[in-house]
């Protein structure tokens, strides 16, 4: 403190005018960048709520899809809600366990082996593969042989989710301290037991929240479904046979319809879809806040 007061003759803290101005311009620029991002977000949320909220009702969420010319007061988008929930749910059932196991392999068994590093690297690359490629891929290996079905859509979404779950699981397991593992080995536990009863529970908060974010992303995807479920308007409860429908594909179809009723159904579906994604995201945040022991 004494030294600082002695140095008052040399004013180190006051940069010259232009340097200070430049600094202020830069700071303002960063805030402007943030504002630029907020504008479209606020704009799109406002539009979706303004145009979609009036459409939402119990009848809208459960009723059958009417023909496009009918106004939004007739029928609803029930089959699409059903399709989105069932297809995304089934995709999660496939992708989350496999993804967690893959993440366990990379972090617990792979060590520094080349194979584990290659898998980790390509899982990362796979998260960047466009979702439309997953749709085309399932089209070529599944739909061409077994036909369009909700299950094909679930396969495509699972391909999309798998690398995301693997990566987030790996990152969470990586945070678990080795002392926990060593303590369990010292008690004579096998590797599988250590992983399943000590390491995995220690990281479960982060893994669950990562998986939920993957589900949120998959629920909104359209491109993988367009090629695999062949959109229909009627309710199809059979996941494994026949065309199916989903909220995202319904929005895609109705967006270009000239009828106000069809467009209103698209806005209502958009609000439903955003609500599903937001709820999943908020649950993921709560899980992280409540259960995550090792935060990044």
């Amino acid at each position, binding site marked *: 403190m004494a030294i600082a007061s002695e140095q008052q003759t040399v004013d180190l803290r006051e*940069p010259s005018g232009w*340097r*200070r101005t*430049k600094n202020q311009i*830069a*700071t303002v620029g*960063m*805030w402007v*960048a*943030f504002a630029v*991002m907020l504008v*479209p*977000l606020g*704009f*799109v949320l406002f*539009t*979706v709520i303004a145009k979609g909220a009036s459409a939402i009702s119990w009848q809208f969420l459960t009723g059958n899809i009417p023909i496009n010319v009918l106004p939004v007061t007739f029928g609803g988008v029930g089959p699409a809600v059903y399709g989105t929930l069932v297809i995304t749910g089934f995709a999660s059932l496939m992708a989350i366990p*496999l*993804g967690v*196991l893959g993440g*366990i*392999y990379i972090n617990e068994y792979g060590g520094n082996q080349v*194979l*584990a590093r290659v898998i980790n690297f390509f*899982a*990362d*690359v796979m998260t*960047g*593969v*466009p979702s*439309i*490629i997953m749709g*085309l*891929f399932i089209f*070529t*290996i599944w739909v061409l042989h077994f036909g369009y079905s909700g299950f094909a859509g679930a396969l495509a979404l699972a*391909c999309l989710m798998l*690398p995301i779950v693997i990566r987030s699981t790996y990152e969470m397991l990586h945070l678990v301290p080795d002392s926990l593992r*060593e303590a369990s*080995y010292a008690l004579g536990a*096998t*590797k*599988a037991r250590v*992983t*399943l009863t000590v390491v995995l529970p220690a990281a479960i908060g982060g893994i669950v929240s990562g998986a939920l*974010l993957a589900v*949120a*992303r998959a629920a*909104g995807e*359209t*491109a993988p479904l367009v*090629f695999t479920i062949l959109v229909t308007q009627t309710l199809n409860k059979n996941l494994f046979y026949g065309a199916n429908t989903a909220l*995202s594909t319904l*929005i*895609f179809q109705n*967006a270009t319809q000239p009828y106000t009723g069809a467009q209103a159904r698209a806005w209502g579906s*958009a609000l439903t879809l*955003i609500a599903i994604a*937001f709820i999943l*995201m908020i649950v993921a945040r709560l899980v992280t806040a409540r259960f995550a022991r090792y935060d990044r």
Partner: protein
Amino acid sequence: MSIATKADPALPAGSASPLTKRRPFGDRSFQVLCLAAGLLVLIILALIAISMTQQSTTWFTTAGWSGVFSTNWDPAHNAYGALPFIYGTLVTAAIAIVIAFPVSVGIALLLTEVVPRRFARPIVYVIDLLAVVPSVVWGLWGFLVLAPWLQKIYQSIASGLTGVPVLSTFFGGTSVSGTSFFTTGLILAIMITPIVTSLSREVIATVPTIDREGAYALGATRWEMIRGAVWPHSQAGVVGAVLLGLGRAMGETIAAALVIGSSATITTHLFNPGYSMPSVIANEFGEATVGEFRSALIGMGVLLFVLTIIINLSARAIVDRSARRSQGA
């Protein structure tokens, strides 16, 4: 015996018990299960490459190099040139990057250098909010709200610029439309901003505090500190983040399919309608029931796959190298 056990890669260090020769069956089968799940990634990627290439051979063999990379797209007369779509993909992704790069890096710097940590968290939540809005919702909004509104702005800009030499080639033109290259670029920019921001933020956060303090100790302002200490350190990583954003922008399908205008033309006029590879696949696939048409669309999927894989590989390599260098320093 002991040498053989040591060489066995299936026996990880922690569980190698010298008392028993073999690990219990459940333990080994769990490891095999995990390995199988991990290998699934490589299997899926290989299957994508094989099955899609197989389905597109008709197009590649009948059209040949000159046919694939021609501008002639006329499915009614069996002409499937992919050049307009490759051009549209590159142009819209470039517009998206030009817009998203300053915004993302600005927000990343704001979060790491300006805002205190406890205020940074809510901003991160807002960015995450942007990331979970589904692409089809951006498309719906872009098509029904943004495009009609932009049309008027485009028209006044285009008419104001007639005769101006360079600018009119990009922002002029006669068939100005609300659904255009530029609108698509804007929507893509919004969609890739969250990922570019969060990756840049991770990279910038690795800059050692001692570098920052050193710059401040020399009397630098915050901006000079960013220029002198943060930027040289995180440059490569930010470039990698931008490349990953570029890959995302190229593959974005549904939003682009709705707002790009669906016109297979190559033009320098950014306010004119165009087309891109993913959007043409999504829009035309229903009509392409058999033969070369479908083969051409899947072939464009292969081109897109190869393009995004190359971009992702190089981005990852750049990020990894810069991360390793910063750890070593």
